[in-house]
């Protein structure tokens, strides 16, 4: 039987024509859609450029050092603790550029212990300059507005009076960063710019109770380098703290337990939340420093799972006693 010619060749021709028309229409529509792109001005900062990993600020020859200063005067206590480490001049050389990563998270009065105490900021800044530092910078990415937090906590005025520069975080200072082997800090905005301006990094923070993590000490202090909606990490608080320990390898950390926030952390709000523990711990192993600091909160390292995770990740040791802490009296 002869086939109707319209059911063969014309159909194929029609199909080809319709497909071609549809393709041209789709291409034209795609071009219109792409026209909504406003150009590089909207590009996430630094997203396309490959940046190197953050520097390792530690001094290998100073590994495993930890000292404890006792006293009510932070200036004297930190001087004693750093002296027992061999003096800050053993860690900061002439011409060095030093970054002090403080805790300026809240617009909280210095006496409430929720932020790094201004006396400590000024004392360490001055010691850095005495050791020959060319530049000392102070920074944090506060939870509140930076101006209010740095000013009302006293950190800003203290830093400036001692000769340090205060860096308020700006969007351009953040890089999309990934920590190798991390599961949370992947393609996440991190305040990298200040870290890339310096060759020495010192963490300064108080000892505080924390509602979620159990404690806020030197490892938790690096949380202030995260940008974006970082509060989502509260659901994985111990993991994020451990990854922060992987991300940042400092020259030195100083944990201020002169007044320890025993309850209602991390914001506190009353002097009655504080206990005069008159202890300041300095060291090159932040995990060990935090393990020792746990005792000021009447806790053990075992009560703080992030310490074990950080140790497992190779960030330090919870067995601070094995490092032979040296005790010094401050005053």
């Amino acid at each position: 039987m002869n086939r109707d010619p319209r059911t063969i060749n014309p159909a194929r021709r029609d199909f080809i024509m319709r497909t071609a028309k549809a393709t041209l229409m789709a291409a034209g529509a795609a071009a219109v859609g792409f026209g909504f792109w406003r150009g590089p001005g909207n590009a996430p900062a630094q997203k396309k450029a490959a940046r190197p990993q953050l520097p390792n600020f530690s001094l290998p020859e100073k590994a495993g050092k930890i000292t404890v200063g006792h006293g009510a005067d932070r200036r004297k206590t930190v001087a004693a603790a750093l002296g027992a480490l061999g003096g800050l001049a053993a860690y900061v050389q002439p011409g060095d550029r030093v970054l002090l990563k403080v805790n300026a998270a809240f617009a909280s009065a210095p006496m409430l212990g929720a932020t790094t105490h201004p006396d400590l900021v000024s004392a360490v800044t001055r010691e850095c300059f005495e050791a020959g530092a060319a530049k000392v910078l102070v920074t944090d990415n506060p939870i509140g507005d930076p101006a209010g937090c740095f000013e009302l906590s006293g950190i800003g005025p203290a830093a400036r009076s001692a000769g340090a520069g205060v860096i308020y975080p700006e969007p351009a200072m953040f890089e999309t960063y990934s920590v190798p082997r991390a599961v949370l800090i992947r393609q996440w905005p991190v305040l990298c710019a200040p870290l890339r301006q310096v060759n020495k990094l010192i963490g300064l923070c108080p000892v505080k109770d924390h509602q979620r993590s159990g404690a806020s000490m030197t490892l938790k202090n690096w949380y202030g380098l995260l940008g974006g909606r970082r509060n989502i990490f509260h659901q994985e608080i111990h993991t994020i703290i451990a990854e922060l320990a992987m991300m940042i390898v400092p020259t030195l950390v100083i944990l201020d337990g002169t007044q320890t926030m025993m309850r209602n952390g991390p914001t506190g709000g009353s002097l009655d939340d504080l206990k005069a523990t008159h202890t300041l711990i300095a060291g090159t192993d932040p995990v060990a420093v935090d393990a020792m600091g746990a005792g000021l909160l009447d806790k053990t390292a075992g009560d703080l799972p992030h310490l074990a995770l950080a140790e497992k990740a190779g960030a330090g040791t919870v067995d601070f006693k094995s490092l032979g802490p040296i005790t010094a009296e401050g005053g």
Partner: protein
Amino acid sequence: MEYPVSMKDPKGKSLVSCRQRAIGGLLTAALVVIAVVILVTQSRWDPSRWQAPANDTQKGGSDVLVIPATPADTALGVGDGLENLQPSPSHQAWDQVTGLRPLNAPERYDALTLSDKINGKAELYLSAGFQMLETRRFAYADHPALWLERYIYTMDSYSGAFSVFSRQRRPGATASTITGDAYRSANGLFLVQGPYYLELIASDTSEAIWPPVEALATAFVDHHPVSPSQRDASAFFPQSGLVGNSIALTTANAFGFSRLDQVYSAQYQWQDVKATAFVSQRKNPSQAAALASAYADFLTEYDARALATPPLDEPMYVLDVFGTFDIVFHQGSFFAGVHEAEELEHGMALARQLKDNLKGAAQ
């Protein structure tokens, strides 16, 4: 039978009209545009853009990325920073207090952004019926170096406000008469007014801080009248041995048991012996009884040892929990008992007193 596959009629004319073809083309084009826009936007996702914007309109500091050091003879102190913060007009009647000037516009936070202000402490409020937080800072007109910050937490009910108030109560605090639930610490005033929990935290401990603090608190209370608070359950705690200001309300997961919600507790101490009494009003006696049984089973699952039940009108579950004692019972629709009594004799005496008090209420 063969079917024509062409979209043309026998005369060669298309079965699809021009109008239909145009509409189809536009729809297809629109879908493609949408798809391309989504792909382009998604490829440019930047988590840093998702940071919650600050409500504070004050932008102190300079535009310079690094603030240069100032001469070393500049005096230290918070007063230096306050001068840089410009005042904002007050627009709420309860903010207009003599002796204080607002430093910023009110900042408001909801459940999604609460942790942007109080960080890890947010969970305490979120689990207790949190609705909104408003904060504002004030400078002292007569004392330039002093300032305070006021936190107004709006909870879903009085019990939620009392819960967060009681669970954060500072030891050694002094009772305040501003409301029925209020205390002063060295530098702050903390109170409950209906569904509101207020914290007024000053930057200093001098006597100068108090008149404006109390005026600010009183202004808020006066502008937010509420009906008398309901604390029926906690009113039944025996007075003998009760530690002052120790009554607290746990809205969820009391004593680690997920079914224990809305539980009032109070601390007791007789010389060196301590115990905690607890009371929770349930919907009806059968629910209270079921909860008592469930809690006893929960303790037993964690290796608590059930002891003999004393000869009472209604059964009490008495358990040895690794050297301390839990006594659990229900009285009418009240679920109650004693938790972690260090000595059984004191624990049983307290439980009997509590049961008697609740029996009187149930009649």
